[in-house]
């Protein structure tokens, strides 16, 4: 334990309840967070990184039990503290920043009051001073118009502003240890860049030790002084950021880093000279009085991929929904294979809709849990016009195609992991023999290694079937990996549209430039204030 150590986790082991897929959520993990540094704990879902942070807070979820080891913090073992002692430390000496800032704030209390509450709980500061200090904190986290925000409810301010409020709350009593559990995962990429900048500022300014939990190596590169990689509850590797990121020792770390999509588009061999499979011209869509799509015009050549990139609220999902007429267009035209899609109705629309299939974001919600995979695929095939026998045979072929074992045919979706379910969703879409596939954030819910595989699979399927793909994503890095063309959307408008390489390497619109600059993983943190 070094002098500067804020918290020392020593051989920590947390037991999972009986019947779980492994005996320990966290197994024999030792690490320390030092004053003035950011230690990033990276891992995929199920790696135990969030349980580790909960254990450090002394707040293990129900059913999990400490099975050994200690968490030493200022001479005390946090793992052994109870009730009142823990409460005295929480929010005071250790504070936490959460993943979904909007949900982390009480919807019925003004955000300023929620910052103030920390003083109310831990100090005897009079009300007026509490208010002034809360206001100062909100200013320090760069919230615009703190006086107005103070009197706002969480739903009245943006996600990024909510996260600044949560950070202000965490910093209120100058905690020695700050734990941030995926603090930017729920935020847009430009907002993420600003929050990461704030964390870098904190590191150099406030003399906290920061334990930063994330799944995103791009984020790690932006903020980490040291990195700990976790897998299946165990520590795989720990060391200075430069070593772990650029000269990883463990194979697992190497494969994880290799799977992180880069902003550099790989060379593509798609034939772009074919006629367009979909053309939309001046497409307009409304949500009530709000114009969600403003005269969008795009064309995708047959067999190629267009990635539509934008932040939340940019209209990218509305575009997808309007193209397949889940949402009725308010104007403009959509031509699919020479037919004006907007003029179709009834049976004709049903028939044509089969040619455009969608793969959704959430692989857990989009498959009927009561049907076997075979059922789902066969039904889709029959709806697509095949005979029952033909559809069954095709279903087995599709399982091969998406690289799932044929045994999957008789199982239900619950038996599959997120990545496998997304493969099933892809197979389901392909069972209809579509000409066009719309993938709406189809890899966003997946871990990077799985994400890379699914992207690879989609690319491969496109080559085999010649399908045209519209790929909706918020992540420019993902778009770079799969797209022939990129369209950047903002507030319902396409601000830039062109070949992927050109959009990424020589962006013309200022917003595209901003997005490219905000993609995490391009800048290492400034070294000042790093651990000695």
């Amino acid at each position, binding site marked *: 334990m070094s002098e500067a150590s804020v918290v020392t986790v020593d051989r920590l082991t947390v037991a999972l309840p009986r019947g779980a897929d492994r005996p320990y959520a966290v197994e024999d993990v030792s690490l320390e967070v030092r004053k003035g540094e950011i230690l990033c704990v990276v891992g995929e879902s199920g790696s135990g990184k969030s349980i580790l942070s909960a254990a450090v*807070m002394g*707040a293990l979820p129900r059913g999990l039990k400490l099975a050994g080891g200690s968490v030493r913090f200022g001479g005390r073992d946090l793992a052994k503290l109870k009730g009142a002692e*823990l*409460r*005295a*430390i*929480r*929010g*005071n000496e250790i*504070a*936490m920043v*959460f993943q*979904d800032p909007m*949900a*982390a*704030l*009480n*919807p*019925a*209390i003004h955000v300023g009051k929620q910052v103030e*509450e*920390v003083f109310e*709980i*831990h100090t005897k500061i009079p009300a007026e001073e509490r208010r002034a200090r809360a206001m100062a904190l909100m200013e320090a986290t760069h919230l615009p118009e703190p006086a107005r925000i103070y009197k706002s*409810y969480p*739903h009245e301010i943006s996600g990024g502003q909510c996260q600044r409020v*949560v950070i202000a*709350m965490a910093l209120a009593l100058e905690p020695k240890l700050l734990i941030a559990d995926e603090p930017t995962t729920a935020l847009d990429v430009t907002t993420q860049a600003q929050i990461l900048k704030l964390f870098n500022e904190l590191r150099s300014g406030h003399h906290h030790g920061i334990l930063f939990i994330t799944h995103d190596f791009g984020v790690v590169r932006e903020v980490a002084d040291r990195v700990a990689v976790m897998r299946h509850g165990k520590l795989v590797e720990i060391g200075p950021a430069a070593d772990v990121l650029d000269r990883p020792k463990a194979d697992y770390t190497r494969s994880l880093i290799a799977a992180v999509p880069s902003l550099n588009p790989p060379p593509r061999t798609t034939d772009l000279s074919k006629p367009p499979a979909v053309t939309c011209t001046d497409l307009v869509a409304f949500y009530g009085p709000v114009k969600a799509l403003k005269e969008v015009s795009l064309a995708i050549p047959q067999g190629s991929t267009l990635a539509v990139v934008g932040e939340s609220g940019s209209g990218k999902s509305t575009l997808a929904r309007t193209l397949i007429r889940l949402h009725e267009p308010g104007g403009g035209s959509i031509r699919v294979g020479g037919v004006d899609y907007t003029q179709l109705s009834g049976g004709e629309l049903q028939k044509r809709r089969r040619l455009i299939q969608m793969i959704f974001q959430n692989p857990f919600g989009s498959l009927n849990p009561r049907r076997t995979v075979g059922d789902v695929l066969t039904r889709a095939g029959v709806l697509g016009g095949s005979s029952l026998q033909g559809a069954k045979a095709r279903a087995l072929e599709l399982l091969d195609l998406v690289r799932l074992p044929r045994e999957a045919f008789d199982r239900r979706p619950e038996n599959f992991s997120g990545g496998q379910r997304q493969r099933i969703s892809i197979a389901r879409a392909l069972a209809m023999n579509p000409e066009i596939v719309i993938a709406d954030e189809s890899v966003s819910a997946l871990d990077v290694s799985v994400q890379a595989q699914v992207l690879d699979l989609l690319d491969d399927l496109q080559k085999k079937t010649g399908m045209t793909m519209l790929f909706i994503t918020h992540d420019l890095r993902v778009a770079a990996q799969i797209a022939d063309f990129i369209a950047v959307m903002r507030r319902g408008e396409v601000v830039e549209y062109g070949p992927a390489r050109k959009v990424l390497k020589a962006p013309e619109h200022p917003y595209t430039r901003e997005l490219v600059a905000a993609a995490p993983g391009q800048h290492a943190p400034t070294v000042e204030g790093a651990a000695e």
Partner: protein
Amino acid sequence: MSRYLLVKLAEVLGAMLTVSFIVFLVLEANVEDVAVKVLGAYSAPDQRQAWLQENGYFDPFVLRYLRWLWNFVTLDWGSSTHYRVPILEILPQRLAATGILAGITLAIMVPVALILGVLAGMREGSAVDRGVSFFSVLTTSIPEFATAVFLSAIFVFWLRLLPGASTMLSGFSVTEMILPVSVLTLYSAGYLARITRASMVEAMRSPYVRTALMKGASTSRIVLRHALRNALIAPVTVVMLQIPWLLSGVIVVEVFFAYKGFGTLLYEAALNTDVYLIEACAMVSVVVVVATQLISDVLYRLLNPRIRFGDEPAGATT
């Protein structure tokens, strides 16, 4: 807020007009029927014709409806054919009697159910939670006429502690109130407690409660400051739905205990095909239902800042 209230009031008026039209259509569309009901089954046919002629029953239907509606609005509600007195002389006092019964029930039931629900939801799976859930399911699953019989058997016939009828003939009597209130409370408290519990459990699991916990807040602060307000949104709606139920749904209890309230009045009016009284009772019920809905909507918005005054909440109905 005033704009919101105006819109709401317009909706309420629309709902009331619709119901009034249906009531009128059902009860007065067939004029022969009305004459039979008012003059009695043994009246002579020409007597009925004369009565119908005299009371304008041969005018067009819409005109009759409008006249009827105007009379209702101007409080000219006619006379009960069964009691042979103006409706305005009996209905208000019966409504007040039921109001007292419902008021006392609410005053006891709401705090009890909310406290039980909150205690149960605070610690999901605890002994208190299991106890409250068991009690709730038990009381809600026994219909009120059964509870009335059981309670009467115990307190009236066996222990001889309480009177079996609540006629209030010699003025207001607390002892006569106990049984009807207990029956209603037992029946409705369980349901409200369960809704409160579910809502509290959800609040206690929410990320903002975790945030409060990580700020070092004590359990009492977490419950009172953070969870309670958000957890009360659903129960408030339920309470407001229970008020109209208490008004007309208590027929069984009122009849069982011979309590002279609105329920018994409606029951007797229906038994005796007392057309004008049924119409008046139906209209009063509508007023109460829409009024409580209106209050419930306003309270909902006060508790839940995410729904601002002026916006139409998704799926809002009257």
